[in-house]
């Protein structure tokens, strides 16, 4: 900041790596030249820049390409700026010089903007918000979203899938097994005094006629089984008539 206009290019050389590219150096040189960037001399700025680059070459300092590209462009600019006024090339140079000056002003403005931002008390750096904020929000998921379209879609899906399942898996019939019948017959016989139709020993909860016939068959088999072991006696009075069953009282009397 306190740098004077008479700064030696060599002193800058030592700090070249401190600059962020050619534009940064140009801005620094310009600011050293004039505080008001609108009044700087582009020509002398070019000379200063080229002197720095020349110095770097002299001490074989390796420079990145963009430094040399800028140097080449500035050399071109200088040659045009030195032409007498009025020519097309001279005008071109003036435009180019204005663009360079504008870019330097832009960069300067941004620098100042960054500095201004830096002076602001920053949240989390200089000023602090509440360290332990409280959360008073509560989530209510009680409301349902329903629409007719999804109801209908669900219905079609369920019915179609249901039909599909049925096709492949015929409904399992819960048939009254012989084992079930044996158990039921044996437990009920005690409460039956006289000849009783086998129908009475069927379970109470039977679905359709198919289940009923199956249960009757199982119960008959159970009766035959018990008759064979001599626990019951069976009797059928006519063909296709009801089959009667009774507890065997004493010994075996008649056959079936």
């Amino acid at each position, binding site marked *: 900041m306190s740098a004077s206009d008479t700064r030696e290019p060599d002193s800058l050389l030592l700090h070249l790596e401190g600059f962020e590219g050619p534009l940064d150096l140009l801005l620094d040189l310009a600011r050293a030249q004039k505080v008001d960037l609108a009044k700087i001399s582009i020509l002398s700025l070019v000379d200063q820049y080229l002197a720095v680059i020349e110095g770097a070459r002299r001490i074989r300092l390796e420079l990145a390409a963009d430094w040399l590209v800028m140097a080449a462009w500035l050399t071109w600019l200088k040659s045009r700026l030195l032409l007498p006024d009025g020519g097309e090339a001279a005008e071109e140079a003036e435009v180019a010089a204005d663009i360079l000056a504008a870019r330097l002003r832009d960069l300067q403005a941004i620098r100042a903007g960054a500095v201004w931002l830096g002076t602001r008390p920053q949240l989390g750096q200089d000023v602090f918000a509440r360290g332990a904020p409280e959360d008073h929000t*509560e989530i209510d*998921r009680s*409301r349902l979203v329903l629409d007719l379209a999804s109801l*209908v879609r669900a219905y079609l899906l369920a019915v*179609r899938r249901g*039909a*599909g399942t*049925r*096709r492949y898996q015929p409904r399992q019939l819960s048939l009254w097994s012989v084992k079930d019948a044996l158990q039921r017959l044996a437990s009920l016989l005690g409460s039956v005094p006289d000849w009783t139709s086998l129908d009475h020993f069927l379970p109470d909860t039977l679905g359709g006629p198919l289940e009923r016939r199956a249960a009757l068959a199982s119960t008959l088999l159970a009766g035959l089984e018990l008759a064979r072991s001599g626990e019951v006696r069976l009797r059928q009075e006519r063909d296709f008539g009801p089959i009667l069953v009774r507890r065997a009282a004493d010994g075996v009397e008649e056959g079936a």
Partner: protein
Amino acid sequence: MTDEPSAAEPSAAPIAPDEAALRLAEALVFASAGPVGARALSQLLPENVDADAVIAALRERYAGRGVELVEVGGGVQFRTAPDLSPRLRKVIEIPRRLPRVAMETLAIIAYHQPVTRPEIEEIRGTSLSQQTLDALLEANLIAPKGRKESPGRPTLWGTAPQFLAQFGLKDLRELPRREDLLLEPPQPAVQPQASEETASESSSPSSLVTDH
């Protein structure tokens, strides 16, 4: 409590904490993520200032305000006054959707009511969990409609008034007719991938439904 007006005593009686100490304590407690203990505070305060006295003064300053200094594990912390929390509470409503199973069950009940649970299972081709039925009951979408006069006298289910309200229907007749949904003749030409299976699937349900 003990702030004697006698100025003669040197440092035995605790002096009232000055504004600077209060400000610092206030800022520290405010900015800290956790409770601030007297020891942590005293590290920031000038040596002759009693941290406990600062905390006490701070608590008094905030007493009755919207924010209070409360003692929690290991120190003090600012908290909003408990009486205000009902007013600060912000309820965010996130409506939920019915799970697929519940939606299907609801649709079957709507179209086949009154219907028993075994009948629903028959139509869906799979068993129905009590949980699903409970969810629909809880949402007030279905209601029991007596019992079926058949073995076991199973409960009959139908839609509840809330069902109409939820779907914006005036009455049940506003539901799309089942015939319109199911009895479309299958179009094998349009759906080349749809096999016989699909065709028979979609035609069978109506007959199955009427059987029961």
